[in-house]
């Protein structure tokens, strides 16, 4: 019994890992069907696992309601939201537009509730980028200074008014145009640094994957029982 509990999962992890890695170098039809099949499996497993999440979030809000802990009223809105999503979804069988081209209730919910909520949360970034710049962009060191200088030049040059002011003031002293210089910074030093980071990440990712497939990193396997 111990083998099943302790060793078998590691064997599964090793076999699946090696098979999927080797598949990349085999163009054969069987290998293509194999990887398509497995990614299909992944979708099905994720679908089942979603119920774990559903139970977890419902438990939190049911506990709040039962214990009347502060803010329990808002959990009603949470369950109301689920009902709205599920009822409109089932009424329109998951479709936002009918064949005839009319918008379904699910489509209406998506356009007038989900879209505005997503769009508005997303656009809070416009506010937070300003407050972050004012609070955090202080030049504490030369490094932060370089970061600030490059950011300022990029912000300045991305807008027509910026180019206009640049040409009106000190544009003449430079042999190149503003956008040419900005593009050079983007395509040479900045891109090379970005590449260096990505190459570093690729080595880290491969090392982590090897540790997992080889069964060295097995915290996810849990304890003794």
């Amino acid at each position, binding site marked *: 019994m111990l083998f099943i*509990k302790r060793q078998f999962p*590691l064997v599964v*992890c090793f076999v699946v890992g090696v*098979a*999927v*890695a080797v598949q990349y170098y085999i163009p054969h039809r069987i290998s293509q069907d194999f990887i398509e099949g497995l990614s*299909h499996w*992944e979708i*099905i497993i994720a*679908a089942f*696992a979603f119920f774990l999440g*559903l139970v977890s979030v419902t438990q939190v809000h049911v506990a709040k309601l039962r214990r009347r802990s502060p803010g329990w009223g808002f959990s009603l809105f*949470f369950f109301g*939201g*689920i*009902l*709205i*999503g599920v*009822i*409109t979804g089932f009424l329109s069988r998951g*479709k936002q537009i009918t064949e005839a081209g009319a*918008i379904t209730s699910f489509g*209406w919910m998506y*356009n*007038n509730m*989900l879209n*505005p*909520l997503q*769009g*508005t949360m*997303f*656009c809070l*970034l*416009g*506010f937070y980028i300003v407050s972050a710049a004012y609070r955090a962009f202080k030049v504490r060191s030369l490094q*932060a200074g370089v*970061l600030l200088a*490059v*950011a300022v*030049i990029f912000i300045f040059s*991305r807008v027509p008014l910026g180019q206009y002011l640049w040409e009106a003031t000190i544009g003449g002293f430079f042999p190149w145009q503003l956008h040419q210089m900005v593009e050079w910074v983007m*395509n*040479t*030093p*900045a*891109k*090379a*640094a*970005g*590449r*260096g*980071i990505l*190459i*570093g990440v*690729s*080595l880290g990712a491969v090392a982590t*994957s090897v540790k997992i*497939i080889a069964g060295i990193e097995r915290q996810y*396997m849990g304890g003794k*029982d």
Partner: protein
Amino acid sequence: MSEFTIILGAWVSAGLTLCIFSFLYEDNPLFKVAEHLYIGVTIGYSVTNLIFNSMGPNIYNPLKEGNLMPLLPTLLGLGFLTRFIPKISWMSRISFAFVMGYTSGLSIPTTITSQFLKQLEGTVYPLLTRKEGLLDFSRAAIGHDISVFILVAALLTVLIYFFFSVEHRGPIKAASKVGIYFIMIYLGAAFGTTVMGRFSLLYGRLFDLYTYRAERYYYATPVLLVALIFFLVVYTLKQKNKPAES
């Protein structure tokens, strides 16, 4: 799409937008309502999507046609659900093992392709150029050669910065210092280019709110805005003379 649903849509959309914006002022009941409603709706949306667009076509239909393919992944999926029953919750480890093995196996070759080779592809160039058989020393060519040199130097110094098990002393320390500055240039450039997108997002939302002020929508935005401000004032005053609730 009758006129009524359009007007109702405008009021609901403007109302929810203003509730989320109220979070900028401070955390308040209206934001909590919008937040919990938003979480609930997205979960309802996920459940609907799951049933109709994922479980249906991937599990129900194939099984109906006698294809037993989805049985094994269904077992692995059920393995996750054994976490509810402590006695057999060890079975979930087999499902974990499958998922972790799949991810690690898939990521090794794809990472080498997209994050290693593709990045090298754009960096390993000759430091000299030749046109029609002659070494080209024209201004453009020299400029290109210098750019290639900077490209390679930046990449090498950034890689040196990421050395973990080597003492950063002497030449390595110097190179890693240069690497840090190249990283700062990258961060500055990335920050600068993202700012524009954020403001056009904000412009889009305020543009919508502005359109919903029109008479056709029965002045949705102004009415809701006044109601929101009134509510926030009352709420803040109530907060001041009552000790903060948790």
